[in-house]
């Protein structure tokens, strides 16, 4: 009897201990600071639709990443900086280990949270937008403008123009107009263009279009007088179709207008109708559904009674949607990389940061992911938070974007010194001592 009592006591004790130490949920929380209303809703719904669908697919197909289920919660930023900061603060502590990594799809919000995120040790990924000089990981340990930044993309554009003209030496004496959105985003490439103009001997004229850009008559009349050989369109939102329509009105050939990737989605050209035919845009990924990963998403997320994030299924495989898929791949691969080092459990932001910095998606891994051709190989490092840098150019034929080049690498001999100079200025302004990468 006495032993039984002791046994019961022991079991009770053990049971109590088990209850006192709850097993942490095997869940990795990924915050979704999205925007689905306002003038840029087309970008927000497309990219976050693809992002969420990819994570959903991982949950349904693989039960998450190595058995750790992915969870998320949306917060509407309306593409406004103050709402974005509110969402950051609201979501940063959710989940068993806090937010893993933030994606804002907004240059302004990314800028606004850099210092907060660095202090909170949560990485911020900005794929194809955000703060360019954050590519210098020594000064910005928690910011990852992965795949390619605006300056890199701009050198690739000039290379593309050189190819079209028959060699970089043929650029001498050519005239290029840079038509830019009057915002931080729009101004970002002015210095890198000026530098290249000096290097290759072409002249560049910067013409500003005031936000939002639905009136561009005077700018295009100026362009008609200048008769430039090429126009670089650095537009966003409604500015893009208006530029193409006005160009058609003043008779400027659209196949000599080269857009940035925020001018190169279906939503940017369809409103311009036939005026957009021939327009060329840079992109760090193609659209289309002809990739294994897209078929997997279709199979797991959009069939068998399961409903994905997209409301309009026609947008499946659009440029913005595929950008979301890529965002999903990169975030998930960073978590996977970090799990290989820290264990197959929910990770903190600091640990995911290590995964981002040691991200290495090579051709072989791309094939396994079913994303060969959709994404370029990416290898980040402590020094380089960009990790890719190449772009493909596509041309609009009135119905779809057709890829017309292979990956064109950027000219890092121009970009890297500018990034280091700018990052060093930021470090000095904020009293940051850059990390020594040989010790990482």
């Amino acid at each position, binding site marked *: 009897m006495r032993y039984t009592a002791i046994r019961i006591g022991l079991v009770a004790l053990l049971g109590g201990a088990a209850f006192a130490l709850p097993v942490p949920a095997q869940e990795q929380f990924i915050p979704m600071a*999205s*925007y*689905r209303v306002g003038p840029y809703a087309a970008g927000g719904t497309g990219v976050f639709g693809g992002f969420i669908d990819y994570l959903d697919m991982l949950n349904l197909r693989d039960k998450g990443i190595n058995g750790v289920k992915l969870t998320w919660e949306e917060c509407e930023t309306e593409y406004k*900086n103050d709402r974005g900061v*509110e969402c950051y603060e609201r979501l940063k502590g959710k989940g068993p280990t806090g937010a893993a990594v933030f994606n804002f799809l907004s240059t302004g919000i990314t*800028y606004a949270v850099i210092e907060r995120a660095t202090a909170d040790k949560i990485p911020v990924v900005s794929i194809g937008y955000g703060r360019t000089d954050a590519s210098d990981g020594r000064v910005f340990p928690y910011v990852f403008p992965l795949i390619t930044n605006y300056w890199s993309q701009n050198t690739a554009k000039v290379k593309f123009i050189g190819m079209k003209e028959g060699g970089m030496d043929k650029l001498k004496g050519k005239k290029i107009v840079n038509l830019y959105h009057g915002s*931080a985003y729009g101004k970002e490439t002015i*210095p890198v263009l000026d530098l290249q103009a000096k290097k290759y001997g072409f002249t560049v004229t910067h013409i500003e279009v*005031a936000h939002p850009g639905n009136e561009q008559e005077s700018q295009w009349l100026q362009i008609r007088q200048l008769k430039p050989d090429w126009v670089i369109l650095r537009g966003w939102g409604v500015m893009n179709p208006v530029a193409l329509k006005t160009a058609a009105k003043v008779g400027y050939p659209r196949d000599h207008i080269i857009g940035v990737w925020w001018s190169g989605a279906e939503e940017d050209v369809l409103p311009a109708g036939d005026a957009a035919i021939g327009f060329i845009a840079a992109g760090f990924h193609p659209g289309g559904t002809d990739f294994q990963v897209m078929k997997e998403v279709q199979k797991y997320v959009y069939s068998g009674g399961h409903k994905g*994030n997209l409301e309009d299924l026609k947008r499946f495989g659009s440029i913005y949607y595929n950008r979301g898929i890529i965002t999903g791949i990169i975030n998930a691969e960073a978590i996977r990389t970090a799990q290989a080092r820290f264990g197959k459990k929910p990770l903190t932001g600091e640990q995911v940061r290590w995964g981002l910095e040691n991200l290495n998606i090579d051709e072989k891994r791309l094939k396994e992911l079913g994303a060969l051709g959709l994404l370029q190989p990416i290898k980040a490092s402590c020094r380089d938070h960009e990790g890719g840098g190449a772009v493909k150019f596509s041309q609009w034929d009135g119905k779809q974007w057709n890829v017309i080049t292979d990956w064109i690498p950027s000219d890092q001999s121009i970009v890297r010194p500018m990034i280091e100079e700018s990052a060093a200025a930021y470090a000095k302004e904020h009293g940051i001592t850059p990390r020594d990468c040989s010790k990482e």
Partner: protein
Amino acid sequence: MIYREAGQFQTTYSGDMRIFPIRQDRIAVSLLLAAAFFLVPFIGNDYWLGAILIPFLILSLAALGLNILTGYAGQVSLGSAAFMAVGAFAAFNLMLRVQGLSVLLAFAGAGLVAAGVGLVFGLPSLRIKGFYLAVTSLAAQFSIEWALTRFPWFTNNNPSGVISAQKIVILGYRFDTPARRYVLTLAIVALLALAAKNLVRSRIGRAWMAVRDMDVAAEVIGIPMLRTKLTAFAVSSFYCGVAGALWAFAYLGTVEPQAFDLNRSFQILFMVIIGGMGSVLGSFLGAAFIVLLPILLNVATHALLPAHVSGSLTSNLELVVFGGLIVFFLALEPLGLARLWQIGKEKLRLWPFPH
């Protein structure tokens, strides 16, 4: 019942003219302030302090600035955000270019620079009235935003045209946590609100209200039009400028001129209209309505609606509900939330024996 004033007699003129003549008001306001200063920083977490209360206080200050101009002096303006931008960029440049300048002095300087710019853009008000003046104030909105984007000197040659505000250090004490920045913001806002309340009860404030109610009559009884209107513009811009500096330094940390675009000006104007024109309390109520309600709706829709409801639907639903509430409150009381409060208070003072 709680507002029964039986036994409270004013025996001096100064007693009769104090801000809160009723004892219950004095107690309530002191309790509120004491809680805001000494309780909230300790019980609030980073999210509440850093992402909700700081922006609410700053935008209340901006709304107060516009309320001085529009609610008290009757001059409609659509340029408040531009004056906030002037304040933010002025504070940044003062800190950058004047060695060893205290942050508080930089904020005051930012307010003064904004006041100077406000004076210039207030000049048309001497000739133009009403809606036409609102349109000319758009010039301030556009030209200031344009100048800050166009000339790289303002942003210290930053390639993207953004500024990163310097750290707030006062007498060696670092305001680096949300709780500390909240206390600093609250102190500045409380001081300026007190100043505003006293200003509108003074000779200047009465001159403003005379101009608002009928400017010809005001001129006839000897109120100088030039000085009265321009002081209203200067004081209003000062408040907006300080709010802008706080927005950059105490809230976001990094701002671009586009953070102060026309939408922000509209937002501040709506705060004044919904909160109540010509009321200091209304500025705070309006800011609470415009800033906090959308966030509350966002949290509520995520909490109440089942998870499978699409994000686009909830985001749009929030806007619909928000718009509906604006219409509801304005239909209920066109003079704003402050008037609703005032009516409620009048009733409470008579309760339980209304006439």
